[in-house]
């Protein structure tokens, strides 16, 4: 029986060593894939690192991806603390983007900073509203959010296609997208900042939404661990019976947790629309909502963990595209597989080596204590 008394395991073993071992294993298996595909894994790693850190624009891209993963990762984590498996981040982000656009275009007569604030509010409200329906059904009818949120992703996608084709399409253009927002509303980008300091760099999508992501991380940490709401959400998540006993309403907390989750996912729309596209383009969430699940699980649903996990996925996204560019045998899908392997090792197989690793360290510490 390889059970370990959890209280004896130092925090850095379970929160740093174990995820690190899982990650190394995942990268090792990914290396095998690349080797089988007929390329040099060592060279691929070099390209990933170069692509994501080697030059300033590449690094900016890495941080841009990180921004999106932070939003969707936080979204998943908040719901998960109430033991709700919100896999509808994709749809909530999509609808959140709609909120950003509608607010920005309709309030363009207001000063720009106010429009930004309102647009962020629009993203949160629209995202939250899209999460509210599954939350309500879960709370009152027991319809499982896994089922309803994934269906709501498809509904959101269809709804947006309908809107982009028939209602809010830019009629002077062929593609399924809206008109662009007035240029003064665009978020200042990394290029602009670099320009202030006299550094000239090429285009990258990184913009001040990155700071919003960091603010959102603080918000989540504060909400979950420092407020009564977070406390109640976690109580409902861990033990619903006990929550009822303590007079905490599961109904209310399921709805609150899901709405906050949806609102955070909606913030992805801020990055994409105010920061990058400056209009709604069809399919802009591009899978970030799903990858956010992996980011949250890998980051152990804590903002401090989600940040490095999001950064790691940012590196993989950016470095991966560099690899596919330079290595003809490696396709884009290869990197989807690499992500899959990482999710597999850090999510589903998370406990594969945990007992052994924890045992190892506990035994070592015991020996040290005896000596």
């Amino acid at each position: 029986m390889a059970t370990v008394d959890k209280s004896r395991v130092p925090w850095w073993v379970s929160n740093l060593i174990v995820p690190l071992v899982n990650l190394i294993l995942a990268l090792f298996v990914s290396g095998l894939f690349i080797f089988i595909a007929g390329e040099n894994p060592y060279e691929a790693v070099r390209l990933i690192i170069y692509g994501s850190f080697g030059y300033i624009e590449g690094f900016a891209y890495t941080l841009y991806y990180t921004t999106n993963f932070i939003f969707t990762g936080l979204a998943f984590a908040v719901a998960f603390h109430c033991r709700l498996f919100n896999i509808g981040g994709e749809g909530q982000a999509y609808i959140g983007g709609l909120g950003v656009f509608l607010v920005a275009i309709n309030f363009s007569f207001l000063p720009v900073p106010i429009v930004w604030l309102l647009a962020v509010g629009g993203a949160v409200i629209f995202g939250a509203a899209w999460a509210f329906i599954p939350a309500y059904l879960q709370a009152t009818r027991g319809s499982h959010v896994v089922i309803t949120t994934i269906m709501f992703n498809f509904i959101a996608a269809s709804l947006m296609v309908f809107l982009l084709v028939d209602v809010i399409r830019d009629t002077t253009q062929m593609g399924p997208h809206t008109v662009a927002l007035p240029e003064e509303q665009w978020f200042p980008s990394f290029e602009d900042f670099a320009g202030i300091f006299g550094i000239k760099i090429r285009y990258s999508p990184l913009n001040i939404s990155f700071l919003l992501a960091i603010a959102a991380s603080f918000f989540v940490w504060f909400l979950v661990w420092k407020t009564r709401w977070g406390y109640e959400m976690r109580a409902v998540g861990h033990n619903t019976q006990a929550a009822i006993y303590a007079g905490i309403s599961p109904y209310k907390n399921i709805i609150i947790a899901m709405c906050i989750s949806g609102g955070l996912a909606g913030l992805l729309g801020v990055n994409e629309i105010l920061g990058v596209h400056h209009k709604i383009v069809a399919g802009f969430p591009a899978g970030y909502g799903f990858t956010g699940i992996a980011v949250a699980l890998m980051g152990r649903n804590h903002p401090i963990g989600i940040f490095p996990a999001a950064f790691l996925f940012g590196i993989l996204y950016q470095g991966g595209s560099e690899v596919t560019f330079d290595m003809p045998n490696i396709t884009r899908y290869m990197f989807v597989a690499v992500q899959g392997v990482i999710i597999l090792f850090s999510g589903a197989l998370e406990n594969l080596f945990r007992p052994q690793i924890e045992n190892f360290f506990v035994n070592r510490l015991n020996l040290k204590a005896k000596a």
Partner: protein
Amino acid sequence: MVSPILELKNINKSFGHVHANKDINLTINKGTIHGIIGENGAGKSTLMSIVFGLYQANSGTIKINGKEINLRSPKDSIVNGIGMVHQHFMLVENFTVLENIILGFEGELVFGKNLEKAKKDLKNLCDTYKLNIDLNSTISDLSVGFRQRVEILKSLYRGAEILILDEPTGVLTPQEVDELFKILRSLNEEGKTIVLITHKLIEIMDLTSEVSVMRQGEMVGHTKTEDTNKEQLAEMMVGRSVLLRLDKTEANTGDVVFKVEDLTVKDDLDVTRVKNVNLEIRAGEILGLAGVTGNGQTELLEALSGIRKVESGEVYLDGKKVSDSQNFLDPRELKEQGLAHVPEDRQRMGLVTDFKAYENLIFGYHDQQPFSKSSILNHTDIISHSKKIMEEYDVRPQSPNLITSNFSGGNQQKIILSRELNEKPKVLLVGQPTRGVDIGAIEFIHQRLIDMRDKGAAILLVSVELDEVLSLSDRIVVMFDGKIVGEKENTNVTDRELGLLMAGVV
């Protein structure tokens, strides 16, 4: 004549770093009834699970009839004549007695010859040991006492010479216990060896001829039962002398502060579990509610504490109506009115075991000053409050940041108790306050409840432990099938009388 049937030598078993059995030596003689006694968590069940092949020992040897054997699974044990009746029965509820007994030993694809033979054998066994079981009845129709007999019959049918019973009386009424003991004695007369695991001293004194005492994973003593007494055994169990009877003064009662009128409550399956119950509790008294598990006590407590809806009837707190079928206060509002509740099942309801201790110490009061101000938790105050009450209630270890599931059962119970008592409630509802709690903590918890009473709280004590009800209560009511079937002042009441009421006989 005395020959050992089962010998254990230097048995060691660890779970992680928890050393559940340390160098255990045990000899059980043929034809005896051997008691193994110890507190919860002393390692009794682990040891017997090793004998039954459910766990493998890390080291040590097991001999049966002088022959060393290797027990890898329960099947090996059964072949070697060991049978075990678990605390939680291992029966398929929708199968008949016969089907349950032959399960795994059917021996043929289509029932026929063997089944008939099995039936005949079983009838003989039933007659020999006066088990009085109808082989064709379905398990779900049988009472707990009969289900236990089915387990015994199952072991006998599989050729058990040594029968291990793990806490067999926990779920039985006193009358059922008598029946069980009769059966065990007749088994013993027919030459079977019986091992009785229990934490109840009285059963050891009643039934066994030899006794072994375990404490914290170690075997601390063996003796013939006739050479010892309850006090001595209790001392060996806890490692110091304990007060078995509480010192308690006459109750100094005041006005009725909690009143229940004609209360009816249904469970989740819409079955009426509490039927027209009337109760009155005065300030400064403990009302004991005795009854066998599952006679509506759980639903009653849940309704009184605001967790479950009242079907009909009324509840008054301090003269004010707090619930009826139309309006009721939720648990938090009741807490604000001065009603505290220590729930029956601490892990299912009383605690969030994944929370840190300090988070559980404010559970249900987390929205009150000074723990939270405008919805933001005030960690400094919460931690200092936690440290204070953990010290006051002797919760060990005294680390508010430890995850609650790492505390022992007794200390988890103290966390709940300290949280609920600390608010100086007018009315205290307590369910099974010492279930799964060791003797040292039981004493402490009982003393605290008496203290609360003396400070003027009205206490409703729901417990399936008759001893507990008898030693704590000022008045006792008995619940059977959702109804209050008897009420007694707690003077000269015997457990016999209560037992009959609990069984619904009178």
